[in-house]
């Protein structure tokens, strides 16, 4: 059943399928998942494709089992992934913390739908973006990317694997139903042009005194030992010392958790991705992500045609949040507008870093926010001042 790994070429591809192909191209060889709209096409594609490249696909009994099997497979050395939507994402949250604590890389794709609860299974939402950051208990940090096209479903899935492996953290691809179910051109590069960041591997031989969580590098990432290599290491979700042994002291706990958080903060520049449009002289900065950013770009283009100095900052990495970029924009901008398909989530993050008024263009989900309400918000701010409309508007 050997087939082609990387489908190099120009395709007209479904977003969920592009995500699956990104995983294959990134070297993902293990997928465990549970069917859930609108992510199911990722599982279906990988059920077909993984056996072709010698990989493993398994449909588990629920999303809890799925994420845990992914972590287990990764512990054995495989690049491993699961894909889900809101309800399943919620079920996975406990073990996101396990992956963070054990420092076992994994990739979780959330094709967001209208929520909370069962919500709108077949229609889009962007209301899981704070859950991606804060969903598990305790202090930990992750990376999360928001694709706005099938092409980015491919590219950011590759990036997610690289960031996960390089920094030994869970990484989320926070897609949405629009992008997941949209068909568009996807260019898959030749295999040797797919970026690949490897896991750090042990530098010392197995033996007494080997410390699997010993950190010797500035990046705070310990090399990773896989099951079956003779190191006989212990991984636990309990607070542990450099040997991996449980240690219930406040001192060890503070040192470990601080390192896990600091590891991501210190290396954030390698994880942060964003895109800009017409920002150079922009006085009104629109910030958006995922499918909503497509409408935001149109709104900004229309505003420019009307002579309004608007620009777009598109968040590609939601987490780590590009705080420095936003701070820098705050030096030139009169006002910020955040457009997102929820009732105000990433806007809170923007408000942390700017002193200007931030206007929200929100919708609870179910349909992509069209360009018009974003353009209207830009015009209100342009013609009536940054505090026009009382701050937060609804696109509905």
């Amino acid at each position: 059943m050997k087939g082609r790994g990387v489908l190099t070429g120009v395709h007209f591809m479904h977003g969920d399928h592009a995500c699956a192909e990104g995983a294959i191209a990134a070297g993902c060889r293990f997928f465990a998942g549970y069917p859930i709209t609108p992510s199911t096409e990722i599982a279906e594609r990988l059920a077909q494709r993984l056996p072709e490249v010698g990989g493993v696909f398994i449909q588990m009994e629920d999303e809890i089992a799925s994420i845990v099997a992914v972590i287990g497979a990764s512990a054995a050395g495989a690049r491993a992934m699961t894909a889900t939507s809101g309800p399943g994402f919620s079920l996975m949250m406990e073990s996101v913390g396990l992956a963070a604590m054990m420092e076992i890389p994994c990739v979780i794709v959330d094709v967001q739908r209208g929520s909370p609860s069962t919500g709108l299974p077949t229609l889009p939402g962007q209301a899981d973006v704070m859950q991606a950051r804060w969903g598990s208990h305790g202090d930990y940090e992750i990376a999360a990317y928001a694709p706005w096209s099938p092409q980015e479903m491919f590219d950011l899935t590759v990036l997610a694997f690289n960031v996960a492996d390089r920094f030994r953290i869970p990484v989320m691809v926070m897609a949405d139903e629009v992008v997941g179910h949209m068909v568009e051109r996807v260019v898959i590069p030749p295999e040797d042009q797919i970026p690949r960041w490897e896991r750090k591997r042990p530098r010392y031989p197995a033996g007494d005194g080997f410390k699997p969580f010993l950190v010797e590098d500035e990046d705070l990432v310990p090399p990773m030992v896989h099951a079956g290599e003779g190191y006989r290491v212990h991984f636990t979700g309990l607070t542990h010392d450099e040997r991996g042994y449980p240690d219930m002291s406040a001192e060890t706990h503070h040192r470990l958790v601080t390192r896990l958080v600091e590891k991501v903060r210190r290396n954030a520049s390698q994880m942060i991705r964003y895109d800009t449009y017409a920002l150079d002289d922009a006085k009104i900065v629109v910030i958006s992500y995922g499918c909503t950013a497509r409408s935001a770009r149109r709104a900004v283009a229309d505003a420019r045609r009307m002579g309004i100095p608007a620009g777009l900052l598109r968040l590609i990495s939601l987490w780590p949040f590009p705080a420095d970029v936003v701070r820098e924009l705050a030096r030139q901008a009169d006002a910020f507008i955040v457009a997102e398909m929820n009732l105000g989530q990433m806007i809170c993050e923007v408000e942390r870093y700017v002193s200007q008024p931030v206007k929200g263009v929100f919708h609870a989900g179910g349909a992509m926010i069209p360009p018009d309400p974003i353009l209207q918000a830009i015009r209100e701010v342009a013609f009536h001042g940054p505090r026009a409309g009382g701050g937060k508007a609804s696109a509905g």
Partner: protein
Amino acid sequence: MRKEIRIAGFGGQGVVLAGYILGKAFAVYEGLEAVMTQSYGPEARGGSSSSNVVVSDEPIDYPFVLEPDVLILLSQEAYTRFRPTAKPDALVIIEEDLVQPWPDDRPLRIPATRLAEGLGRRIVANMVVLGFFTAVSGLVKRESVEKAIETTLAPRLVPLNLKAFATGYEYCVKEQAR
């Protein structure tokens, strides 16, 4: 240039495949930007089916069809539902045996299912209608759609589908000549 195309009918008529092949012809073989979307959820139930293609010479921001420039309607339900959404000067194509247009409407007509049955398989009516559209609209080159058909379908299905496409294309040429 932004053109919005909607193909609608009932489940089993292959409207999603037709939309995919058309979008692929634009995006891969014409060097244009194209997005295909389809209905999911409640609006996709009840046996109705539609696919939507937006094509443009610049990046497509908003991916959905709002006011179609082209409507290809293969069922009465689709006609009733979508006919009013079209732009005033829209190109409207109907499956003439399945759609009874309103008295004041003058859509283009093709007996796609009958022509497909003439080829032995009614399921290729979607390719017949795609051929008709290609010939009448001038929006896409014949070879681009043919390449999209060849690279999308399983090899054993390609000859019949190409034949169906050619049948629709030539039907249009013939009708226009008349």
